[in-house]
């Protein structure tokens, strides 16, 4: 009950008109580009799953998750009103859970609708299922990690972008071992497995993907709660 009440407030606070419009526009641009490429040369070797992977899972999902999730606790720290949850007789894990679930509730339509539409326009039924499962995995894992990031630094957007661009985009590509520590390995693998396309070498099995996602969310949740328990609150 405590979690639901806080979550409702967090959703209203995070889902500002500006953020929703900006993120929806990014999704719309992706859809338009995908449609344009698909229709420009019907005989080309355009693989819909590759575009869904490249735009959807590598750029769109982490970006939207970053903007929304870092705001859940991050906005409260910036506006110095976290105290109105922090000083109540409730476990701090409930604040973490409310923030994470709040981010997921906002992200679900914001991510799944444009990704589903894009998949349906340019791909097959398997592509749609693949991008939806991959996006869902991404929403759950990225939102937990970026919610945690928002509890640590007021520059969470910048740090998150560095993680997405530098770690996931560059370093994780250098070696297979580094790849295990990049969330996009799991989101892309989910798409590859469900749509049955070759996007990366030896993608982890679906069971592993689910287990890793749960473990990441749990670890991020524990660290966020530890942070809330030990931080100075204004």
């Amino acid at each position: 009950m405590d979690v639901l009440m806080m979550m409702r407030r967090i959703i209203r606070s995070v889902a500002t008109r500006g953020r929703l419009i900006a993120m929806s526009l990014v999704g719309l641009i992706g859809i338009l580009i995908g449609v344009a490429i698909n229709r420009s040369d019907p005989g080309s070797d355009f693989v819909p799953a590759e575009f869904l992977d490249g735009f959807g899972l590598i750029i769109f999902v982490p970006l939207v998750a970053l903007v929304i999730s870092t705001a859940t606790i991050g906005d409260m720290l910036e506006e110095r009103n976290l105290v109105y949850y922090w000083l109540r007789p409730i476990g701090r894990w409930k604040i973490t859970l409310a923030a994470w679930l709040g981010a997921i509730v906002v992200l679900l339509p914001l991510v799944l609708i444009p990704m589903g539409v894009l998949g349906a326009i340019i791909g097959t039924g398997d592509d749609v299922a693949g991008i939806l499962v991959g996006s869902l995995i991404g929403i759950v894992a990225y939102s937990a990690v970026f919610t945690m990031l928002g509890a640590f630094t007021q520059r969470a957007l910048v740090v998150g972008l560095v993680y997405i661009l530098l770690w996931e985009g560059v370093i994780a590509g250098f070696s297979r071992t580094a790849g295990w520590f990049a969330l996009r390995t799991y989101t892309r693998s989910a798409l590859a497995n469900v749509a049955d396309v070759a996007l990366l070498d030896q993608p982890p099995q679906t069971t592993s993907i689910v287990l890793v996602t749960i473990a990441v969310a749990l670890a991020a949740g524990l660290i966020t709660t530890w942070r809330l328990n030990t931080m100075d609150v204004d």
Partner: protein
Amino acid sequence: MSSPSAPTPAPPPPAAPGSEPIVVTNLSKWFGDVVAVSDISFTVWPGVTALLGPNGAGKSTALRMIAGLTPPSQGTVSVLGANPRRDTAVRGRIGLVSQEEHLFQEQRALDFVTLAGQLNHLSDAEGAARKVLATVELDPDDKRPIASYSKGMRQRVKLAQALVHEPDVLLADEPLTGLDPRQRLHMIKLIQDLGANGVCVVVSSHVLDEVERLGSRVLVIAQGRMAAQGDFHGIRALMDDRPHRIRVRASDARELGAQLLAHAGVRGVSVSATDELEVNTDDVELFRTRIASVAKAANVRLLEVQPLDDDLESVFRYLVGR
């Protein structure tokens, strides 16, 4: 420095031994090289206690440590027998009016205070929220978001959310800031009533008159240290007993200075210009009552009498420096 010569504390209300709501022991807090609070100890009983000190004295930091918002660098805080930072249950018995301006700006006051009640597990949170909003003279049915409220209204919303669960301990950081004179009187009455009803209220303020109106026990903090503690009148007397410096402008400064030395309890006089002198006195009351008659007897015209160290800062400097 402070305790041995400080005024005797006002007798606390009857309380069982060990039942003091707030016990602060050797509390210190530093941020890097900056010491915000240095080795302060005090006990707070039910009733109103004012934390008095100039801006930057360490009052807010001390209050934040009592609320558990920041851990002490050294020393301990016990609120209702528990550590407020670690004990979940005790947080339900504390109300905090923070100095921060931001509330949940997009919410209505009723929603904000109701949420506070719900998170304190009240069975009728909305009913309690309506009641407490009316108590602080806000309309519970106001549809406007808090963001559109004036500073005084936000201040009252903050008080409402702190009181909605009827806490045993109320910590209020400069709660009168931003209120108009009528609201100020109302807030003072409210705080007095809470104290009279057995709530342990700690109010921080840098305004001596506010503290006087609260009629409270006073803890004077300056430069992070406890400068004095006791009842307000004792502190006030201590402040009035200190040497005072007064600048006087008169038609004949030298003649007036000589007469003041002889007749007005003046310890020293320094003439800085033909029409200006600086007076040192231990008995400011005697000086005030006699200066006019002494000037008249000496046939000197008084132009201006200006206390040089009557501001709160200098009072605190004196208390700390004793």
